[in-house]
């Protein structure tokens, strides 16, 4: 049992922090970048690719670095720290994760190396209007005619759906849910992009008899694989949230030390400093849980439950810290030109993309009678 990062992991963090600091150390740069499509900076994206980060968890034979969940966690946290708008978790962990989980060797070679090089931006089209956080598809159906497939239905919101070069789409087949690849220039594909409140981009994506390629060889149900990859993405998002919460808290503490009212700095008011202390408590408890969930993933344990646990803890912490960060700043916290409100906005998005805290709690509650106590170092979290 070891909660410390090794020297290579430290180096990874430092190198990435340097890169992102140059890109977004000045929060005005982020505002400029997110104001224009595609909502992130293609040059920064290329630099992340050059560092090997866009292929971080993929095997070397598919153009990746063969790294594990801990390295992914480090990258996600650094992304969150400066609210870098580059879609690392969405493209690499989620889309890349699905391709890696079910794709054929040829598909992996093509798609994963394209993602790793930064030449292919994938988007996952899984969410459907009117449903929430299900691992299976309901509204988009797949039809087979001979050897070829077509998709029909609507997916929304699809993060980066308008910019994406390829879409990884979940759709209903006879056995349950299967995954498909749809090219950005496919016939019968209509994409309507828009901005999200946190500076990102999403799209309404309509499939109208759209040609699609089955991901993998089997037409069997892929719900379990989707569930597992969603869990990995929830854990990565937990780390992204940790990075953001950390900055929100530091920024707030700094503000309390410098802002004067009634002739004194705000840190003279215990009503404020106690609330900042509580934010720290929330942050550290969430951080411990997120790190643990990454280690469970690394150890091959029950990643789905571990992700739910991290989701619950970071959801509660994200809401607490996001709201308090603004309140302790006062009016400036709700302005667009100041950073802290953007953290709250991003934390709110991270809380709703793949399942919120109450959703995770409901899942955990269903299983609460199945064990006497939780042993974080034992079964089912270690094999």
């Amino acid at each position, binding site marked *: 049992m070891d909660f410390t990062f090794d020297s290579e992991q430290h180096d990874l963090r430092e190198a990435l922090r340097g890169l992102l600091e140059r890109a977004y150390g000045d929060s005005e740069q982020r505002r400029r970048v997110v104001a224009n499509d595609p909502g992130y900076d293609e040059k920064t994206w290329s630099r992340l690719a050059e560092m090997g980060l866009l292929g971080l968890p993929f095997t070397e034979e598919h153009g990746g670095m063969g790294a594990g969940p801990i390295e992914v966690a480090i990258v996600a946290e650094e992304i969150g720290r400066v609210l870098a708008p580059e879609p690392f978790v969405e493209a690499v962990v989620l889309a890349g994760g699905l391709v890696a989980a079910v794709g054929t060797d040829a598909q992996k070679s093509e798609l994963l190396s394209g993602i790793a090089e930064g030449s292919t931006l994938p988007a996952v089209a899984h969410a459907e209007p009117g449903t929430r956080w299900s691992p299976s598809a309901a509204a988009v159906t797949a039809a087979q005619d001979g050897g070829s497939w077509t998709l029909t239905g609507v997916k929304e919101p699809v993060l980066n759906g308008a910019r994406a070069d390829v879409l990884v789409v979940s759709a209903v087949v006879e056995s349950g849910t299967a995954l498909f690849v749809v090219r950005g220039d496919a016939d019968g594909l209509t994409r309507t992009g828009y901005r999200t409140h946190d500076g990102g981009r999403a799209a309404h994506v309509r499939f109208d008899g759209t040609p699609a390629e089955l991901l993998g060889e089997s037409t069997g149900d892929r719900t379990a694989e989707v569930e597992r990859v969603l869990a990995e993405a929830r854990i990565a998002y937990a780390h992204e949230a940790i990075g953001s919460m950390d900055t929100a808290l530091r920024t707030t503490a700094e503000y309390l030390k410098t802002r004067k009212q009634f002739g004194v700095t705000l840190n003279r008011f215990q009503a404020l400093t106690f609330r900042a202390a509580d934010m720290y408590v929330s942050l550290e408890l969430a951080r411990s849980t997120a790190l643990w969930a990454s*280690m469970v993933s690394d150890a091959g344990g029950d990643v789905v439950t571990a992700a739910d646990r991290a989701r619950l803890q970071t959801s509660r912490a994200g809401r607490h810290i996001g709201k308090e960060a603004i309140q302790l700043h006062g009016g400036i916290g709700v302005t667009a030109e100041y950073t802290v409100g953007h953290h709250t906005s991003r934390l709110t998005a991270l809380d709703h993309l793949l399942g919120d805290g109450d959703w995770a*709690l409901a899942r955990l509650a269903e299983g609460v009678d199945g064990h006497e106590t939780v042993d974080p170092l034992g079964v089912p979290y270690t094999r």
Partner: protein
Amino acid sequence: MRLQLSPELEAFREEMRTFFTTEVPREIRDTVAARRHLSKDGYVQAQRILNAAGLAVPHWPVEWGGKDWTPLQRHIWREEMQLACVPEPLAFNASMIGPVIATFGNQEQKERFLPATANLDIWWCQGFSEPDAGSDLASLRTTAVRDGDDWVVNGQKTWTTLGQHADWIFCLVRTDPTAEKKQRGISLLVFPMDSPGVTLRPIELIDGSHEVNEVFFEDVRVPAENLIGEENRGWDYAKFLLGNERVGIARVGSTKRLLAQAKQHAREITVDGRPLAEDPRMAARIAEVENELLALELTALRVVANSADGKPHPASSVLKLRGSELQQAATELVVDIAGPLSVASFADGGSDVPDWARVATPEYLNYRKVSIYGGSNEVQRTIIAGTILGL
């Protein structure tokens, strides 16, 4: 980053688990599991069993019975002890005065006190708080004035836990009332509770228990050799003593055990013919406390795994704050599961109310103390805001 314990630590954990569940008498562990107050004999018997096996004071220096374990081993030792419902070695002995004497006492004091302290041959109590010195401990007013070879002690202490069992008291006294800073004029004296001039008065608590006391000193003569460390350095020793057990104070294992019991009780209570445990709101409440407890345990593990260099991890201040809140949340949960049965606190024979429901509310009321003692949670927030956030 690695989740699994090493094979050596896995074996160590198993060894602890086996010892605690087989070597400590069933009736003692049953009493702890039933959340009933343990008798003095129960504490003494359990600690002597641990001490005979070298497991009472593993955090002490090796020459005085310590084990030279890593912080993680100590964490495992403590967790397994709590999970097995083994009463922990008396905190006043094992965590408080023992380490102070081992660190600051002279050789004669070490030889005189440490073996007896480890074996609970001496039962120590704590003379720190006073009526006007609670969180602001340095305001204490009990005095010790030098008279020949003795110190003469006058004043009053309060919240002296289990003082009714105590043989000796370790006591913060003001020895230099003229010191510029109030922290500077304090010394640490130890003396027998049956010294002439010592009077103990029980304080009854809201749960009906007699756990704490007031202790009055009237011209109590204490030989000069009973001063621990240096004169007027008592505040440093008090800080050392209070900071010593930040990690253990999270009491994760104990709360885990209580939560497991709460789940069992929720299966036994029925609502309209269905077990309360199946009520989604109750299940969610249990699951949320359980997850908070997991987060706390993981934070404790982070702290112990990272504090090998002797410096406490910054997150350690979270442990007391959150640990006490979760102990309280678990006791509150049990009261709520008991529902109307929770009023039958003093039922005796002839009542159908199960024992766990009888003790539920007294324990809930009693546990309001855990966010107050050992540095109240407001003191912890002050520490976090000041030393971690720089506010």
